[in-house]
């Protein structure tokens, strides 16, 4: 017995030590995101120091006087785009998700729709910009307008809303539906009164994430808007527009250093909207997972 034990060297101490190093490395890797986030926020805050004032929110952009420039037109453009995208993509996306989960049978067409949505979610956002340019701006002659931009963003975030809503609807137990059917409710009555309310927190998480993506995207708007210095607030759906990320891009890409401070200030404003939205989405999901009744 003792002879075999001494012949076999398990090197346990060494293997465990190696394991601890590896665990530490993995822990460090998973902290890299947080570290990067802190450096990024710190850098942006530092560079925007002294440039973020009330004027910055209430003045129009200027190509000549950086100290007087603001992002009023970009803020209003983003608000318009948010309203259009929310108004179009949310009902269409949720309805599509309800159809796929509650109505669709396993037909060939429905399988194609499902596969198609997964692939659409991976199409680069700038390609959506080319789609919007071809369909909304040119074919439907909406020109370089807010509505063309808003519809393009709607198509972009539609897969996000559909995928999240489907997951939320699928998580509602079958017994909810069976109980409603047993009492004589029709399919639509069941969905309206039971399935959708039960799935609402999950759907909301998806919707908030989708809308925050829409606010932050510049790429799909570039082929559509094509201009970044707009010195008026859009008054209607057919007006030309700019948006916060477009304005930030334009300022970042300028050679003059003053404009980089403006870009940093713009980023702070944008993140002041986006980070709370994302935190809210994550919070809604966490809250729902803790309190759900099934």
């Amino acid at each position: 017995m003792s002879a075999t034990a001494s012949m076999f060297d398990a090197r346990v101490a060494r293997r465990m030590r190696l394991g601890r190093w590896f665990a530490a490395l993995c822990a460090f890797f998973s902290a890299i995101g947080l570290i990067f986030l802190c450096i990024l926020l710190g850098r942006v805050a530092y560079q925007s120091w002294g440039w973020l004032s009330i004027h910055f929110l209430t003045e129009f952009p200027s190509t000549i006087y950086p100290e007087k420039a603001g992002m009023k037109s970009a803020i209003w453009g983003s608000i318009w785009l948010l309203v259009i995208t929310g108004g179009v993509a949310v009902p269409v996306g949720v309805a599509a998700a309800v159809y796929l989960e509650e109505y669709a049978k396993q037909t060939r067409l429905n399988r194609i729709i499902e596969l198609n949505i997964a692939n659409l979610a991976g199409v680069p956002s700038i390609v959506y910009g080319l789609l919007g340019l071809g369909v909304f701006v040119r074919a439907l002659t909406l020109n370089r307008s807010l509505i063309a931009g808003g519809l393009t963003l709607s198509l972009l975030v539609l897969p996000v809303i559909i995928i999240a809503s489907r997951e939320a609807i699928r998580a509602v137990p079958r017994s909810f539906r069976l109980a409603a059917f047993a009492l004589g409710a029709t399919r639509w009555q069941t969905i309206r009164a039971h399935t959708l309310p039960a799935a609402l927190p999950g759907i909301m998480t998806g919707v908030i994430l989708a809308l925050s993506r829409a606010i932050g995207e510049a790429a799909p708007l570039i082929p559509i808007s094509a201009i970044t210095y707009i010195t008026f607030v859009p008054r209607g759906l057919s007006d030309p527009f700019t948006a916060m990320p477009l304005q930030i891009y334009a300022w970042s890409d300028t050679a003059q250093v003053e404009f980089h401070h403006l870009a940093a200030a713009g980023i702070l404003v944008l993140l002041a909207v986006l980070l709370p939205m994302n935190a809210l989405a994550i919070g809604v999901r966490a809250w729902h997972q803790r309190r759900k009744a099934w």
Partner: protein
Amino acid sequence: MMRSRWVALQEGAVKVIFFACAAVSLATTAGIVGILAWESFTFFRHVSVWEFLAGTEWAPNFDPRKFGVLPLVCGTFMIGGGALALALPVGLGSALFLSEYAHASLRAVLKPILELLAGIPSVVYGFFAIHFVTPYVLQPLIPGTEIFNAASAAIVVGVMIIPTIASVSDDALRAVPRSLREAAYAVSATPLEVSTRVVLPAAMSGVVAAVLLAFARAIGETMAVALAAGQTPKLTLNPFESIHTLTGSIVQMSLGDTPAGSIEYQTIFAVGLTLFLITFVFNYAGQRVLTRFREVYE
């Protein structure tokens, strides 16, 4: 009687409307393919497909004009490859830590941070690349780094795709049955050996899918690349030079003075089609691998 007919009518209408909404996604794909193909067709009547695909010079705005897409593809793949080289070890390490080592409470903190990272707009990463990574990290470390360079873009795009790799891999690692781990522990394997020799190989298809999906994202990444990588189309492997990319050229042409409808302007659709096809291949492969691996464990 009247009421039940009304209910039946409502039921039918709702179903039709909901189907129409689901069909919007089909129309979107048809629209993308249709627009890209149609507009590229007008481009390819003036420039041969061969000249476009095999040409080694991209100069649509200069005389003589050159429409070789290879320099753009080269730049795009260089940034995608660099981003992956950074994001794969970090993302996979994070996924291993989350699924194999981290306590549930730590996990509950780390996962949302990854999601926050994924929620930061691309243009912000671009700003950070050009006004921090290049001047304060790359240029002091590597003298001769140009103001616009592929490396800074690759670094920030790498950070952008970490969440994709980490979360898809994490799902795959967690789908590995507990019994496999316990069997390995029973023959006195250490946690490291269990993670790397049992769990990781069992989840390999999920990791492969994560890499494919993340690479597709990196290829299609636009704003960060347009800001940081430069606008110098060239066939090079030096990441510290200014280059040009597929997405960058679309941005440049869209914002430039080129009149809409000219051949130079039509390049955005030909380049867009190229980009769409490349990302489609990687996305489709990723999806296929994902569904296959789901079948194995359910």
